[in-house]
């Protein structure tokens, strides 16, 4: 199921704040949230890395004109 990107990025920000350096982040077991391309999640799963995949694609398939209109029309 697709989820709004805002919710995903909020969670990402929280994670970043909790781990204030890349070094610290990688010194502990990694929990990955993969957004978009499912192949990345599959690769991590194969290496026994905990990963949550979020099915997401850019609005209007990335068409900038449609995306611009959507942002003005609101949802």
């Amino acid at each position, binding site marked *: 199921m697709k989820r709004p990107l805002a919710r995903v990025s909020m969670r990402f920000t929280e994670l970043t704040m909790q781990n204030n350096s890349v070094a610290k982040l990688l010194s502990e077991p990694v929990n990955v949230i993969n957004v978009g391309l499912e192949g990345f999640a599959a690769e991590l799963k194969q290496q026994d890395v905990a990963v949550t995949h979020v099915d997401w694609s850019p*609005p209007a398939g990335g068409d900038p004109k449609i995306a611009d209109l959507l942002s003005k029309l609101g949802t």
Partner: protein
Amino acid sequence: MELIEKANQEALSRMLSADPVLIDVVPASTAIPELKEKMILHAGPPIDWADMCGPMQGAIAGIAVFEGWASDLKDAAAKAATGVFDFHPNHHFDAVGPMTGMTTISQPLMVVENRTYKNKAYCALNEGLGKVMRFGGNDESVLARLGWLRDSFGPAVGKALRSGDGIPLKHLVARGLTMGDEMHQRNVACSGLLLRELAPALARTADDNEELAKALAFIGSNDQFFLNVAMAMGKSIMDPVRNIEGSSVVTAMCRNGTDFGIRVSGTGDTWFTAPVEMPEGLYFPGFSEDDANPDMGDSTIVETIGLGGFAMGASPAVAGFVGAGAASEAGNFTRTMSEIATGENPEWTIPSMDYLGVPTGIDIRLVLESGLAPTINTGIAHKEPGVGQVGAGVVRAPMKCFEQALVAFAESVGVK
């Protein structure tokens, strides 16, 4: 934008407050006075003869012979190619039709009245299974059945309905959802419930016991009999939602076997079209996807009101029938469609999903933002005229329709 939110709430309110009642069966010339000789209404958005698919051309040849406008199928096709017949979409005349969707002057049409908004909508009677005109069938058996529907069955059902106050459909559909129907590819429960409502009046008003028995057996043996009722109901619900300024809610989705078309409330009666897609599904023994025709019919009016693919969760059996996956996955289709809907219908609920209301009011903005196209459960016709149904499956509405619609809609509310 506040204008859009208010307009969409108004659209949703009109859908939820509709009161569709099956009140009559009448000749198409009575229901639609604009219908004339050699005028043929078809499913989907406007299309010319040369662009029509095989089953559509086959049905047109068949209905022309049936109406006495051509001596045989070859003569009918030649006349169609030279512009003798006048083609229009059903949707332009308050009507809908399944698959090829043939509507001509002598066809008996069911009449559904939306008593809240005083409008009426029409759909032909379901012909049953096997070789039928809606799938492009056009041989003598198909035309003979159409003759019986016109001369005996249609008038009998009309008389029975007129003897009472009609059959309210909203509660009937609500019960059907609790009994495993989604009202597009599964209508077993609703067809049975309708027969229970109709049978006493049919018996009371029948002139001939043998014809009565034949009529009852015809309904009782056709699991899809209610589909055409659901379609007329859908059209009667959606027509009052047209032309609400600022509403991005879809008011019609349909296909003619070549193009898929949608209409959006805020952009009036403009069609936004794109090439129709191939259904993915399961095929009857002896057939494969090589035999399949692209998606076709006005029956997507059922998804437009939140049933069919949108109500898949109510009908795990359909998920298997249309090849959409395991029965346990049926609910995922409904949950996904909730993401593109303005709201839910509190009267049409799905018990196995904790009485979730079916997703109602497709918002073109949500479709494009999420990338989730409406899911449609559909029958699959053979690509050659005269063969009939070869399977059933799932198809998605083309995104291009929604992209075009969004551009026009934005203009209608002054956004560039």
